[in-house]
């Protein structure tokens, strides 16, 4: 069933397909606050897009509302700045209609975990081939400082002057629980790792969920310092490396073992445990992914960073294509005349 859209997409690309980050920077001023973590995420995106071997005109950046929502304006690609919470639904429709596109969604903790929560879990469940980048700054910034679904209990904000009463969502566990096939976490102070995570996320077929700790200098400054500062990061975070034992600490002297179903921190330099006792990370192990993700708000545990899970399943958009192809194979291409005639018609002369 060839349409005009197919015709238009057949127009050959002119010129060499060789891009640099500059090709993805439009001629506009970025209007995030000075020192915003957003800059530290924008530039790795502009840097890796040229490396993916995808035609620039095939990229689409979709966003919702919040500081993160402005990202499409800062990328010289097709872009759609939609409404609060609905970026994933817009992107889902676009990807189903146009599986040839590389669709990226930028969202935030308020946009994606609160007003857009329903679309988030269903996008994960369907495994739509989208790259979701969620800026998590644990606060509503664009509305000037109210608590968000990832704010921690007791957090003082403009709408919680006496402290937040709620427990936060753990985004990676929510994504895993909802069936996301690629789930990862990074932060704005480690550009190299972030670039790697963005690239893996882009290469993954199916839904990719990348949570990015993004510092908000104005309303929640320093929220992630313990995990991102050079002095404390090594002791407070655990980097997940596929096929490698879970070792962490400034001196690489601590690790994670499994005690029953529970992860536990042990020393590996005092003779009780050795590196061989530690859990070996496996991105394909969904049970392990949940165990590791659930360490997130456990104060006795380092904060896990990196890729929790990367498993392969046919994406929803691909299934739509298979189903159509399969049906056409079975019934032949639909004939409009017989559709209109239906099952029972009569003729008047």
């Amino acid at each position: 069933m060839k349409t005009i859209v197919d015709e238009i997409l057949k127009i050959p690309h002119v010129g060499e397909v060789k891009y640099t980050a500059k090709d993805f920077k439009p001629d506009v001023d970025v209007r995030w606050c000075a020192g915003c973590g957003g800059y530290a995420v924008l530039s790795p995106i502009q840097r890796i897009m040229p490396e993916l071997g995808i035609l620039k005109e095939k990229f689409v950046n979709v966003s919702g509302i919040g500081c993160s929502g402005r990202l499409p304006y800062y990328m010289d690609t097709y872009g759609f700045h939609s409404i609060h919470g609905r970026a994933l639904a817009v992107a889902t429709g676009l990807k189903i209609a146009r599986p040839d596109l590389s669709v990226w969604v930028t969202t935030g903790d308020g946009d994606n975990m609160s007003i857009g929560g329903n679309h988030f879990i269903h996008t994960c469940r369907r495994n739509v081939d989208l790259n979701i980048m969620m800026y998590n700054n644990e606060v509503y910034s664009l509305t000037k400082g109210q608590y968000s679904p990832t704010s921690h209990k007791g957090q003082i904000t403009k709408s919680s002057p006496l402290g937040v009463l709620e427990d936060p969502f753990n985004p990676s566990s929510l994504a895993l629980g909802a069936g996301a096939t690629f789930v990862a976490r990074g932060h704005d102070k480690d550009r190299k790792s972030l670039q790697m995570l963005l690239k893996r996320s882009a290469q993954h077929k199916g839904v990719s969920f990348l949570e990015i700790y993004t510092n908000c200098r104005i309303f929640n400054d320093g929220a992630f310092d313990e995990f991102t500062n050079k002095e404390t990061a090594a002791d407070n975070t655990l980097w997940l490396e596929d096929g490698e034992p879970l070792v962490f600490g400034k001196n690489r002297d601590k690790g994670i073992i499994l005690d029953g179903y529970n992860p536990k921190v042990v020393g590996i330099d005092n003779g009780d445990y050795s590196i061989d006792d530690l859990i070996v990370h496996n991105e394909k192990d969904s049970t392990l992914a949940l165990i590791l993700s659930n360490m997130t708000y456990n104060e006795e545990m380092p904060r896990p960073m990196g890729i929790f899970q990367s498993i392969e399943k046919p994406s929803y958009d691909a299934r739509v294509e298979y189903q159509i192809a399969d049906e056409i194979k079975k019934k032949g291409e639909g004939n409009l005349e017989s559709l209109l005639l239906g099952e029972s018609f009569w003729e008047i002369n």
Partner: protein
Amino acid sequence: MGKTVEHLEDVTIRFAGDSGDGMQLIGTQFSDTSGIAGNEVNTFPDYPSEIRAPEGTLYGVSAFQVHFGTKNIKTTGDFIDVLVAMNASSLKVSLPNLHKNGIIILNKDGFDDKNLKLSGYDENPLENNLLENYQVYAIDMFKEIKQELLELDLHPKLVRRTKNIFALGITYWMFNRPIEPTVAWINKKFKNKEDVKTANIRVLHAGWNFAENSPEFKKQYSIDKSDLPAGKYRNVTGNQAVALGLVVASRKANIPLFLGSYPITPATEILQYISGYKNYGVKHLQAEDEIAGVTSAIGAAFGGSLAATTTSGPGLSLKTEALGLAIITELPLVIINVQRAGPSTGLPTKPEQSDLLQAMYGRHGEAPLPVLAAASASDCFNMTLEASRIALKYMTPVILLTDGYIGQATEPWRIPSLDELPDINPQYATDPETFAPYKRDPETLSRPWAIPGVQGLEHRIGGLEKQDVTGTVSHEPMNHQRMVELRKGKIEGIAKDIPKAEIYGESKGDLLILSWGSTFGAAKTAYDKLTKDGHTLSFVHLKYLNPFPENLGEILNNFKRIFIPELNMGQLKMIIQSTYLIPVIGMNKVQGKPFKAVEIEEKLVELLNHKEG
């Protein structure tokens, strides 16, 4: 046996029974067969909102009404001429609407103690004088069928289940309908169940023969063929017609179709039909909620599809914010609202026309969009094509209003050939030299449709106000003023591109009936009746509610009195009054039921008898 034949212009027959009695099935067969016999037909299914209502109860009654005749069959019939009642409850529910001296064909079996108790009849209506003003044929259908099927040695349950077909056979005899189409249908439907097939065909003939041989049945009725244009016909519901309209619109425009919808009564069938059209390359998403339904459609529209979402009142409320997005991004989108009685869950299976103001004005900001309304089941096809054409040509969301009545009612539809349907020519931008996201076509004021994948047209759209022409984000005061005016002007300009309002009767005078949407059938029937009786009045029906046809104001100004019957508390009345600054006489019914033609007729007679200066 001395049977006589009486000639009739039109008949309303109602098949009523328990939910499990197969009334929808025989109703559909009767209506298809009447279409094949060359009559105009209008039908309405009337079934409980419970999925499997308890057997024998009043609220478990399932009915199917067929109005058929030679001409002007535009409603499902105000009153019943022939009632087929399979049990006591179905008789009780339908009786108030039966004509005096009307015909009742009863299944005696359904009037045992248990059925009588459930129906709340203190006495058996077959044994007292309740039915003395009607022509009653009480038949022990089960006994007749048992005898007919004796030699087949079938399970009694199966035998009992064919009683609807027996009743159908009787009605076929009564109205001299051809029996072959239903035989062919049974052969196809039960092709792998030899015993069921044989039983049903035999019982259908048995019903016919029973009436033919019974001394009780003295009269047959004949209805002349209608003078319909030549062509192929089928029966179609409004919901079916919308689904077909969407597929045809996408083919006429030669672009892909995407439907994003969430199930909601009474619109769900459209989603179901579309989901079965996979070999036509149609894509659909059963979304997680109403909002995802519309926003996924907006995403698909950005990607170059003819995108649609279907819903009913509460769903339209949920989609409201997203309509603002479609308006400001100026993307084509078709929203079909199959209206039901509200507010809130209201009467979810019953029709109303009470979402007109929501469709017209129910948005934040200055957010005009075209609003269309279908007049009948088959008109849903035409208006879906129109909604698609306007959406694609003017790069705008369009709301098409239908309702639970025409959504589920059927009428014969002359199947059009593709060539006779209007062309739809969407314009995609491909030239980077001349492209700007908000550079408008000077004639239509519509912006170019530049879809991802085209080199050199990379651009950003979104909910923030954009600079005229360039499409960059703009907070500049005069630019917002200009963009609001441009969007408004674009929608108003569509008036030049839609048919002028057509007037029945004199173009000047005392009284004008102005109707919209599904009220057409009842209003037109009343108008026809009154003009035939020698009254002078005129009639205009509106299918385009925003913008109105260009000549509407002129027409209205030529009448002393404007009369608007509508299934709401006066919504079109309010719009007409405020747009044209003229008074309007309203007639407002909100009972979860369409107008009867006679209700409108009576009101009009009252107005005609009290002429005011």
